[in-house]
Structures are given as structure tokens and as C-alpha cells.
């Protein structure tokens, strides 16, 4: 009887009648804010859950974003998480609420559904400004040298001893040009290479970036300069060759010609056969 009972209980568990698999799974949210060009904010919320002992991003969930200060809170908008579980919105400076100390509060919230419990996260950052200047000099021998100066301040005060990364946008991954620490003036200078390939018009998009700062969050500022080597447009006409989509002409003519001759002969023979009955 005891064995039968154990079998019964096990089968109930296997059928899910007694386990807690039907209860919503608890989710977690991580909020990140990037200050962009001193005016805009990119707010992203990563929503994850522990599934099969791994944290997995949850897609298709609606996340609501808010800004707040000591007095009020107002919604900024909603976004749906992508296949990596990230929901992203961009807002301008005039949409956010800040306090007297230039502290900006952000909150994101997922209300939950039948599958996952709700979660939220909040973050307060201090506004920071990052200015980027590009300088080019030519020495007596005619050799060009380029440098990029980045100045990081907050509320008018320079921020020192902060690592700034300079990247160039490229097709697959950004190219890291340098990593420097700001001095007492909040300034850092990078030497910029002169042989980078640029866009079709020879321009380069680059940006300075500080990451995961406890006070400022992420800060990013970008610039576009004509410092790249222009990309030569590929010839619209694709040459005929073995390796191109257009085969060599002699090959095409031979191939089609042979097929036409042989199949033409077959058709002629078949037509003759059809006329066989009429021949007396």
C-alpha cells in the first residue's frame, strides 16, 4: 500500500498536479542609463529570470519607464523587451525631472503576467557633461597629427580620475582608440590615427564613453569628422569571371549552345517519330 501510495504521489508530481511549475516565475530587472551628448538619455531595462539554473533574458514583456525627483514621478513611456530581454527608450533632457542637486531619478517597472512575476529597478544619477574636441595639426615636414580632447564636467566642475574610452564606430564592433584617465581639469587627450578607413564620404563617427560610473551612470558623447580614408565605391558593373555572379561569356555561350544543339536534335527526332504513322 505504501509503495502504491508513493507511485501515486510521484505520478501526481510528474503530471504537475502537485508541483509549483504553474506559478509565475520571479523576474529581475536591471536598469541602465546612458547620458548622451549632454542632452539625451538612453534608458535600458534588462529583464531576466532564472530558468534551468541560468539567467535568461525575457522577451516580449512591456516595461514602463518613469522619471522622478523628490517631489513627483512621471512616466516617460513604455517599451517591449527584445529577444535579449532588453527594453530601451530614448528621452530628451526636457522630459526628465531633476532635483536641486542635478540628481536625476529613473525607474522602470514590469507589472508581471501569468508567466512571470513583476519586477522593477530604479537608479539615480548626477547629470554630467562630456565635451569632445577634435584637433588637427600639420608640422613643418607636412605630417599631420590628430588628437581628440575630451572634457568631463558635472555641474560646471571638472571630474578627475575618471577613465574615458574613445571608440570609432565600425561595421561589426566599435574600434577602441584609447583609454585614458582624466586629469585635474577633467580633461583627457587621445592621439588619433590618420589611416583609418571612413565612410563613403571619408567621415568617421567616434565617441567618448564612460561606463558604469556610480554617480553618473554611462556617459557618452559623439562627433563626426572627415578624418577617414574615403571608401572607394565598388564598381556597379560586376566583371564576368569564374568567381563572380556573371559567368565568362565563352562559357555561357558554350553551355547554352551545346544544350540547344542537343535538345534541338532530340526534339527533331521526336517530331519525326510523331510523323511516323502518316508515312505510308
Amino acid at each position, binding site marked *: 500500500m505504501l509503495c502504491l501510495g508513493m507511485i501515486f504521489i510521484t505520478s501526481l508530481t510528474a503530471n504537475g498536479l502537485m508541483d509549483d511549475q504553474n506559478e509565475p516565475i520571479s523576474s529581475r530587472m536591471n536598469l541602465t542609463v546612458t547620458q548622451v551628448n549632454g542632452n539625451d538619455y538612453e534608458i535600458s531595462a534588462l529583464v531576466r529570470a532564472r530558468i534551468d539554473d541560468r539567467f535568461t533574458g525575457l522577451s516580449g514583456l512591456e516595461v514602463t519607464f518613469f522619471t522622478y525627483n523628490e517631489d513627483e514621478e512621471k512616466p516617460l513611456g513604455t517599451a517591449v523587451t527584445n529577444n535579449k530581454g532588453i527594453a530601451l527608450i530614448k528621452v530628451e533632457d526636457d522630459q526628465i525631472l531633476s532635483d536641486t542637486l542635478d540628481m536625476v531619478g529613473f525607474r522602470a517597472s514590469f507589472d508581471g503576467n501569468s508567466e512571470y512575476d513583476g519586477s522593477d529597478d530604479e537608479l539615480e544619477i548626477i547629470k554630467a557633461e562630456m565635451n569632445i574636441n577634435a584637433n588637427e595639426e600639420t608640422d613643418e615636414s607636412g605630417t599631420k597629427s590628430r588628437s581628440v580632447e575630451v572634457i568631463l564636467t558635472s555641474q560646471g566642475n571638472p571630474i578627475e580620475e575618471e577613465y574615458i574610452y574613445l571608440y570609432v564606430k565600425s561595421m561589426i564592433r566599435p574600434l577602441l582608440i584609447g583609454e585614458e584617465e582624466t586629469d585635474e581639469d577633467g580633461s583627457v587627450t587621445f592621439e588619433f590615427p590618420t589611416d583609418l578607413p571612413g565612410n563613403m564620404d571619408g567621415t568617421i563617427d567616434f565617441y567618448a564613453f564612460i561606463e558604469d560610473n556610480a554617480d553618473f551612470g554611462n556617459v557618452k558623447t559623439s562627433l563626426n569628422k572627415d578624418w577617414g580614408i574615403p571608401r572607394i565605391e565598388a564598381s556597379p558593373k560586376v566583371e564576368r569571371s*569564374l568567381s563572380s555572379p556573371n559567368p*565568362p561569356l565563352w562559357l555561357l555561350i558554350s553551355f547554352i549552345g551545346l*544544350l540547344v544543339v*542537343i535538345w534541338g536534335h*532530340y526534339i527533331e*527526332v521526336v517530331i*519525326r517519330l510523331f510523323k*511516323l504513322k502518316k508515312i505510308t
Partner: protein
Amino acid sequence: MKTKDLTTFQVSILKEFGNHVNKISRLEIACVFLLVVSILLGIWGLWKQITIGHGVTGMRDNIVWGHYISSFIYFIGVSYGGAILAAALYYFKIEWGKPIIRIATLMAFITGIIGPVFILLCIGRFDRLHYLFIYARVQSPITWDVMVISTYLVGITLFLYLLLIKDFSILSTTDVIKKPNWKQKIYQFLTIGYSGNDKQEALIDKSTRSVAFVIIPKVTLAFAVLSWIFGMTLRPGWHSTIFGPTFVISSIATSLALIIILMWFYRKWYGLKEFITDRQFEYLGYIMLFLIVIYGYFTFSEYITVWYSSGEWETAGMQKLFNLDEFGWAFHLSNFFGIVFPILIIGVRKLRTPNAITAMSLLLVVAIWVRRYLTVVPTLENTLLPMQETRPEYAEYTATMVEWFLVFAGASTFILFAILIPKIINIIPISSYKFKT
């Protein structure tokens, strides 16, 4: 053509045909049964492959070709060889070749149908098969091969039909042999109004000659295209200018061997000694000797060049073939039974008998299949890039039961057709033998 229009000799051939058409012996039934079982096992293997996937074969990431491609090039090569032989014998009106033309054409037709089936077995996505036509790339040898094989199959079917049309007419109208209704209807349908008058006969002869004439260069090109799939690939063991000629010569020799086997079998089983004489065996043997000697020279030339040049990858590939722990036994035995033994049997006058030539042909047929396998697999096992993160068991190819079943099913299909076709089509062309020669 009515019986009264037939000569006495032709009537006697008909009667003989009637005897073996209407009788099915117990041995034939047993053979057919075994062959059908073999084919069914192949179908079971195919079902397994379709439902589970190509994982049931021995093909993996590195060795992507195995039994299927070996059998494909084998059967297609044999088909091409039979077609070129039949067309040449017909076009040049070789008198002693008369009884061989039909056997060769039938063999070419059957193997020409079986060969492409092996390619289809190798294809993982049947739903994308039409891409070969709609996204055909003219520069690709695969495209050439698809077009050439399709064109060839139409050509050989047309040639076979033209050879048979006169006999269909005889068979549909004669009352010398008793035929069931269904056979009568088939013969009548296939006659398409041919009644044997002079103009019709001239038209058929002219059409057959023109098709035979076109077959010779077309099949030569088809041979070349099939060999270029390998020859134009930058793989040591394949990328060789002599690959094509070696393939052509060995395939024609294999066709001859298969024709000899069929001739021996039909002569024995249907009592056709009057038509398939020792002379045909001897003459085909001479042609085979000539081809085998050239094949032996090409093989020797290929490997001595590789050995002398000491190229790293070419030598590694060659060592695989010569190493007795790897493919050495298969390589040496296939060369012995594919080159040395045939030269011995045909070259020595006392050994040059129909039975000996047939036995030698049987061994040659198997030896060349092994040679095709050795063309495909050892080269693929000789990787050009380091095989990182590859499972050790993927480094070598071993055929699975599924592949063996399908290979045997292909061979069984050929043998089954060889047994059943003479029940419908007379092996000796009645229309070609007006009088006893």
C-alpha cells in the same frame, strides 16, 4: 510487321523468345524474391534516413561523401560506357556487335536510372532540389553535371526506344508467340504506328543513326564533366589532369565487363549460343585489354608523379592508399583484379575463354567499385585544414548498415531488371536478323 513478312529465321528467333518469355523457372522466382527483399531493405534504410536524418549514415562534417557518391559515379560511368559502346557498334555497323548493341543499351539505360538515385540519397534537403535549376550557376561543375545527366538520360531513352521500335511492331502483330493482353497493349502503344514499310524503316534507321552519332561526343563530354567535379576541386588526390581520362577508360572497361557478364548469363539461360558466340567474348575481351592497359598506365603515371614530386598533401593522400593498415589492401587488390588479372586472362591465349573472361569481368566489376570508393573517401579523410574540435570518430569514414543496404538495393535493382526485361523485350533483335549469318 506481320508474321508473313518475317523470314523463317526471324520466326525461329520469335519462337525461341516466346519460350523463355512465357516460362518463369523456380530459380528465377527465387532470385527475384531475394532481390526484392534486398530492395525492400534498401527502402527501409531510406525511410530511416529520411525520418531520422543523415546521421544514420557514416558521413560527417569532414568526410561528407561515401558510398552514395562512389556508387553514383560508378553507375553513371558504367552507363556512359555502355552507351558509347552501343552507339559506336551501331553507327559503324560492326557486324559482330549486333547482339551486343541491345544488351549494352539496356544496361546503359538501367544503370543510367540507378546512378542519379544515389545522388538523391546524398541530398539532405529534397525540398531544395529545384534550386539546382532555378539558381543554377553556370560556372559550377555540379550544374554542368545536372544538365548533362538529364540530357543524357533523354538521349539514351530515345536511342533505346529507336532500337526497339521495329521489334515492338513485330511483337504486337505476330501470332507466333502467345502474349497476355497487357503485353499486347504495351507493344501496340509503343509501336506508334510503325508498320514496317520502306519509308518508315528508312526514317527509323536515319533517326537511330543520328542519335547514335550524337551520343558518342555527348557521352565523351558527359564523362569529362563527371570527372571534372573531382578534377576541378583543389584537393590532392582529385586535382589531377589525368583524373578525367582515367575515369573514362576505367568506366568503359567496367561497362564492357558488365556487358560480358550479361552476355554470358543470357547465352547460358536462354540458349543464345547461335547469336552470342565465343567471338563476341573474344573481341570484347580485346577491347577491354586495350582499355585496361591504358588504365594501368594512367594509374601508374598518376602515382609515380605524385611519389616523385613529394608534395606534402599529395604524398599524404597517396600514403593512405598504400598503407596496408589503412586502404592498402583494398587499393592493391582493386588494382590487381582491375588491371593485372584482366591483362593476364585476356593476354594469355589459353585463358581467353568465355567462362574465364566472364569470371574476370565479375571480379573487375567489384574491383572498380572499390576503386571508386578509394577515389572518394581517402581524399576526404586527408584534411587540408587542422580538424579542431572535431570528434575523433569523425576523422574516418565507416559506412553504416543503411548505406550498405542502399548500395545493395541499387545493385539488386540492376540485377532484377536484367532478369525481368528479357520477359518483355527480346534480347536478340529480331528485326536485325533477317537471315542466318
